[in-house]
């Protein structure tokens, strides 16, 4: 019984501590986290929710105002807005998380290696990044989607590849500042192999700024995917996407602006939330840049 009380007590104490720590970040941070959680849960359980199909057209009920049959109304082709928003969340989030992951893994690795080993490798990597950054990314993404086929896979790959330079830069910068520190020199002096140093000493200290940047990259990816879908070359129709919905809503601005504004609102809140969370984390891991 005492153990039970002790356990209960410690759970309460841990929860209070965690809550206090979260509260220290600010109520805005909490709201952002809550929104992200809500969107992720809704997107993940989309199939279980009592929603009509996002692609079924109720052809005689186009551009309808919210009603019992359609809680947020219908779009130009008679499809349920709420269903499209939720399924659109699923697609946007899937791309938004997978694509930066590519950037994180490849770009992060390149940046860390460049920042740690310096010399020729670093010049090559930095030069390569500079060259890649000179190209208008949207144009490259459009070209890939137009010529290599408009699929979710291609969309994820090209956005992921385009995010590599940014991750390389962040990883290299973080590595440069960490590699100078004493514990790295100490590890080397003790005879540790480079690989061991990289994995056990460097990586844990570099991972936090990379993770913070990852969240910011998620926000950017939602926007990029939205832009591509807005132009019609993103998520292949009829799969719903917030950007695509905004693009489709453009021709109904005068008659039913809700069709464009609802997905815009969802996208804005989601991007903002990821920005808030990512920026807060970055501020805690890199005080120099926390001037926001």
């Amino acid at each position: 019984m005492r153990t039970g009380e002790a356990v209960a007590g410690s759970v309460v104490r841990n929860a209070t501590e965690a809550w206090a720590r979260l509260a220290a970040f600010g109520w805005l941070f909490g709201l952002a986290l809550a929104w992200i959680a809500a969107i992720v849960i809704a997107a993940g359980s989309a199939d279980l929710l009592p929603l009509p199909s996002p692609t079924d057209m109720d052809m005689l009920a186009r551009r309808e105002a919210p009603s019992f049959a359609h809680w947020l109304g219908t779009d130009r082709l008679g499809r349920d807005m709420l269903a499209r928003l939720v399924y659109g969340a699923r697609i946007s989030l899937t791309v938004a998380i997978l694509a930066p992951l590519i950037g994180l893994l490849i770009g992060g690795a390149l940046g860390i290696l460049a920042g740690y080993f310096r010399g020729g490798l670093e010049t090559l990597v930095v030069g390569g990044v500079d060259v890649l950054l000179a190209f208008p990314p949207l144009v490259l993404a459009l070209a890939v989607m137009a010529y290599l086929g408009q699929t979710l896979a291609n969309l994820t790959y090209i956005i992921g590849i385009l995010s590599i330079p940014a991750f390389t830069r962040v990883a290299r910068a973080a590595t440069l500042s960490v590699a100078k520190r004493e514990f790295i020199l100490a590890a080397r002096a003790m005879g540790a192999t480079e690989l061991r140093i990289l994995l056990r000493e460097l990586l844990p200290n570099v991972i936090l700024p990379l993770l913070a940047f990852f969240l910011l990259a998620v926000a950017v990816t939602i926007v990029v995917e939205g832009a591509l879908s807005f132009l019609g070359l993103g998520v292949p129709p009829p799969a719903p996407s917030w950007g695509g919905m905004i693009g489709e809503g453009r021709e109904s601005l005068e008659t039913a602006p809700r069709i464009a504004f609802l997905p815009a609102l969802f996208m804005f809140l989601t991007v903002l939330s990821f920005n808030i969370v990512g920026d807060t984390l970055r501020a805690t891991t890199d005080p120099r840049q926390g001037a926001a």
Partner: protein
Amino acid sequence: MSRAVRFGVMLTGILMLALPLLGSGAAQAQKRGGSLTVGLELDIAGFDPLKVGVFDTSANMAAALLFDTLTSLDDKGEAQPKLALSWSHAEDYKTWTFKLRPGVKFHDGTVFDAQAVKFNIDRQKDPKNKCRCAFYIAFLKEVQAPDPLTAIFVLTDPSVNLPKIMAFASSNNVVQSPAAMQGRGDDYNRNPVGTGPFVLKSWTAGDRMVLEKNPNYWNEGRPYLDRVVLRPLPDSQARFASLEAGESDLIWDDEFDSDNILKAKKTPSLSVHQHVGSGASVYAINTKAPPFDDVRVRRALVMALDRPKWSQVLTNGLSRPATNPYGEGSWVKCKDDGALPFDLAKAQALLKDYGKPVKFKMLVTATPRGRANGQVLQQFWKLAGAEMEIEQVDQTAIVTRAFARQFELTPWRIVDLADPDPQMYANFRTGSPVALANYSNPELDRLLDHARVTADPEKRSEDYCAISRLINSEAIWFWGFQNTYYAIAKAKVKGLPKLHNGVIDVSPTWLE
């Protein structure tokens, strides 16, 4: 003479001069001068048939201003003289002799004559030039120019309505200056020279094309306008907004922009010009690509189409369902065109009978209109049990892929022409490069051949109706909506002729 009498004589004289001017009715109501700004859909690539092949709608509109054809169509659809003054044909309709108008000059000062006509056609047909336009005049063996004012068209196959067909301002029919084409080489494409009522003044790609009145036009007194400015505005909202704002005086539009068309119809300061042409928006099925090699699948797709709902969804009900390739605007009238009815249950049954899963890709244009249309069709076929995947490509790519048969299902169009023969023959005759369905049927060929050589319109109508029954039964192509062409203009734009062939010809218009 007393002062009063002299005054009376003077007054009478003045009245005698003035009355005719006052009393002359509508014929003198056209006001000269002014500039007309036209909002087109697409930017024009150029005018050299060797470079662009076939003119699209926007290029047709510009071509109607820069160039002339040998004939034109009046409001009843009859051929009238233009560059040709008169014509006659041989018994078998395989030879047509045109007498040309004398004293006509191209914008560069060179003379228009039969040799110029021959040069244009020869250049298009020359195999060395590999012109995509050559196919459309494959029926034309050659043009002879025995004297400067006589052009003889020798055809390989009979053509009963040749003069009417030649009125269409297409890349084949417009007469361009041989001297300019030879002299300017690669640059000719963007610097065209014709005999038309307007001369090209300036052309900024993607922005505007400025045409000015041709002071030496052979039709004295025409055109009324001083200037026409053509502006490509691909975005339909932008195009309509420019009309509302007064930046454009006239715009091209189509039924997909139904919200704005309906709005314009209610606006007194705007006039909506509408023309139900023959032909339709159509779809070709590649019968060599499974699952389309099975007629049950093809029939099921067609029977799953609820055209009234389709029209409601996409165009607020403006588009008219088509059940055959001719439409209300054609002189071909069928009591029974063999159209398959909308029957969802039957469609589902057919697919179940087929047994295997039905999955395929359809080409759509990479535009909001193309995507929306594709998604509606996707929905119809999903209800029947078939899975369609949308493949977005550019408009030019559709043409390329169609010709190369790299598709399973593709949209196409049968344009409003005075005679169904050119397109029906091209689209369905075995051996034609545009027989998109990869389908061969001897009976169909026989009917097409027969309709081509028969002169009697009633007999031809029968043939074409039989053709329609065959095509519908085999479901190798199917029809969406009839061609309805629109132009929306400010009410002050007068004199716009009928939108034959879907071409908006602003050359005879004036501004009130």
